[in-house]
């Protein structure tokens, strides 16, 4: 890595405030997208604890579920679900742009690739839900 270019006299070097992401709606949307990962990670940690509690026996498991039913956790999960959906939508849209899909000589238009990804996501989610419902 080379050293940063030395500032030259006479030029004005603009500064970047820590709040730069509030300056434009697109930047804010970007920040929210990035922050979605935090909510997802917290949920997964909770899920891990849930599995752990299940291993400790029915009482521990039930107590844990009860804790999750508290308004605070419900609110958190509701918000987290919003973020998770936002992540999925942005991720699938961007992946379609990044991943070039070819059919013979021609590139499949990214819109079509995205549509395919969304369809797959929907089917997969329904399948998981269905599997859980059937078992319960």
């Amino acid at each position, binding site marked *: 890595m080379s050293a940063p270019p030395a500032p030259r006299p006479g030029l004005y070097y603009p500064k970047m405030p820590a709040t730069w992401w509030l300056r434009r709606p697109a930047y804010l949307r970007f920040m929210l997208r990035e922050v979605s*990962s935090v909510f997802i990670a917290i949920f997964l940690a909770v899920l891990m604890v849930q599995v752990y509690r299940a291993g400790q026996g029915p009482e521990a498991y039930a107590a844990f579920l009860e804790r999750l039913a508290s308004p605070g956790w419900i609110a958190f999960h509701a918000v987290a679900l919003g973020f998770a959906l936002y992540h999925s939508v942005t*991720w699938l849209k961007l992946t379609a742009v990044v991943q070039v899909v070819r059919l013979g000589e021609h590139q499949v238009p990214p819109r079509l690739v995205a549509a395919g990804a969304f369809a797959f996501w929907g089917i997969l989610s329904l399948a*998981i*839900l269905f599997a859980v419902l059937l078992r319960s």
Partner: protein
Amino acid sequence: MSTRKTSEPFWWGLFSVGGVVAAFLVPVHLFIHGLAVPLGWIAFPHARMLALVGQPLVKVYLFVLIALPLYHWAHRFRFVLEDLGLHALRAPIAVGCYGSAVAGTVGTLWVLLRL
């Protein structure tokens, strides 16, 4: 190849895979475990839970579902901190974030294997 070795591609690779897993699988699980079960829309008694996670394939599935998106989080959170102006702390931030993801991976493995 004369490329200067950087570990970025490795972490980015894990981030990408984690992002895919998170995009496809997390919303529905979040709905089930975060809302539907606690609110009683779906019953998910202990016995079923235990029976489920006892299956090796389900263990693998849970490992993928929980561990991989942690790298997705680590990568993004690392850059969020940098974006918020913590540029000077780049190295410790990276170690902290990816280190947490690795710890989470080990933890997940430990929980799943103990069952």
